[in-house]
């Protein structure tokens, strides 16, 4: 049980997939323009991550080593298709605003990375914990980035207008603003880490 807990918490801060492993930047930068997009994307990716981790951990002795990556991708793609159909049926607005990035979860580095680095070598329960923790870390990172980008870039929070005095800086919802903010966040977190270790 203790190992379960350890595998769960490591993904949230210390091995956060976005901020410390720096994987899966493409969807992170693309859909973090608003908090609602971030939550939708985070939940969709977490669902795929947890399910694919569990299935791959179950099948890990059956998958031939030489073609393991195609096997992982097939499992992941199956769950992405489920997510896409569910989104189209029950949250068409969210599906439209996430656009191409829902099908692109198939090639998300975090999911493939956890399958390769963890689920294919560990038992089912630990893989479940790993998937949950990494997914939560991904959601948290997306929310932090989206918080800055939505407030600074469009002057809103969860779609509600904050102030009429403040003139939003359009650059923050564009790609350059995302890269700029990502660089500053990574630098800031590294600085905090260096303060704590010294």
């Amino acid at each position: 049980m203790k190992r379960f807990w350890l595998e769960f918490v490591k993904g949230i801060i210390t091995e956060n997939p976005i901020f410390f492993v720096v994987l899966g930047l493409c969807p992170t930068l693309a859909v973090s323009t608003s908090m609602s997009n971030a939550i939708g994307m985070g939940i969709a990716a977490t669902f795929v991550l947890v399910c694919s981790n569990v299935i791959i951990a179950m099948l890990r002795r059956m998958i031939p080593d030489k073609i393991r990556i195609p096997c992982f991708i097939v499992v992941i793609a199956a769950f992405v298709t489920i997510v896409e159909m569910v989104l189209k049926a029950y949250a068409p607005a969210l599906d439209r605003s996430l656009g191409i990035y829902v099908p692109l979860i198939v090639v998300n580095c975090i999911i493939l990375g956890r399958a390769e680095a963890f689920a294919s070598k560990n038992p089912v329960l630990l893989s479940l914990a790993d998937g949950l923790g990494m997914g939560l870390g991904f959601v948290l990172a997306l929310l932090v980035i989206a918080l800055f980008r939505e407030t600074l870039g469009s002057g809103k929070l969860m779609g509600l207008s904050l102030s009429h005095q403040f003139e939003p800086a359009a650059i923050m919802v564009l790609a350059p603003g995302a890269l700029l903010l990502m660089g500053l966040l990574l630098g800031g977190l590294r600085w905090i880490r260096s303060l704590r270790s010294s």
Partner: protein
Amino acid sequence: MADNNKYIVSAAPHLRKKDDSVSRIMWTVNAVLAPVALMAVFVFDRVALGVMLVSIFSALLTEAVIQRSRGQRVTISDGSAFMTGLLLAFNMPAHVPLWLPAVGSFFAIAIAKQVFGGLGHNIFNPALAGRAFLMAAWPQRMTTFTKPFAVDAVTQATPLMLLKEGKAAGLAGMELDYMDLLIGFRGGALGEVCALALVLGGAYLLARRIISWQTPVSFIVTAAAFGWAFGSPAGFFRGDFLFQVLSGGLLLGAIYMATDYVTSPITKRGQLVFGVGCGLLTGVIRRWGGYPEGVCYAILIMNTAVPLIDRFSQPRRYGVTRREKDSGSARRAS
């Protein structure tokens, strides 16, 4: 042998003059920019002064706060942050809310300069990076220009904007003549309107050898030739090249921004390449790009090519042929 001390053998760099320090050069350029600033105040009234002062103050404050908090020596008196603030203000319309130059200068110093390690380490020209940031963040504010000598901020598009939007085919359709462009009686950013003051200042800097002719001349000539060749819808080689030189930010960019020591090539040959590249990109953006003016982006794009240009324009070492040099460096690199 009284003048023995004339033949001192020392290692490079060999300073030509005792008083060629960073701060001396920076303050000379700032002084040369003073007439341009005065013309801006004359043409656009006191609001221009406010924009310039806020921009400079914000640049100095940002530099001081960052250097102090990192435990470095505070070097705001060397004039480089002052120049960044002033040049950024020169890139703005006169009637902007005063928080705009403040935020722009903060970005220019904090992100474009200090994040890279301060003066001498930045890849991009800080003032231009600040302008590009403001253009992407508040495009409406940065492109609403006002008419010269108008009391209550009547908006007026710049000549290049009119050309881009197809509202006027040439100077005649804009109710302007070359004299207006030369003196600065036209809509535009603070520092770009008075071509005369910019050129005179550039001539002084050239005479004092603070800048070399290679970058500005190749930049302006290339952009003018490009405008002459492709600038007119009537056909090739019918464009108005004088209009292309005088109407936008070309003179300000070519003389004062593309010649920034930190972000331009070191060798003369490299500076020629740099200037030609800037000129071509400016022409392409003006003719086919989405923006009416391309000087800022042309210089920023060429800034990224500077390390490459420097690498390929190294002078031959004395006593080494080109082939020997190439094979020698290849051996050392491997």
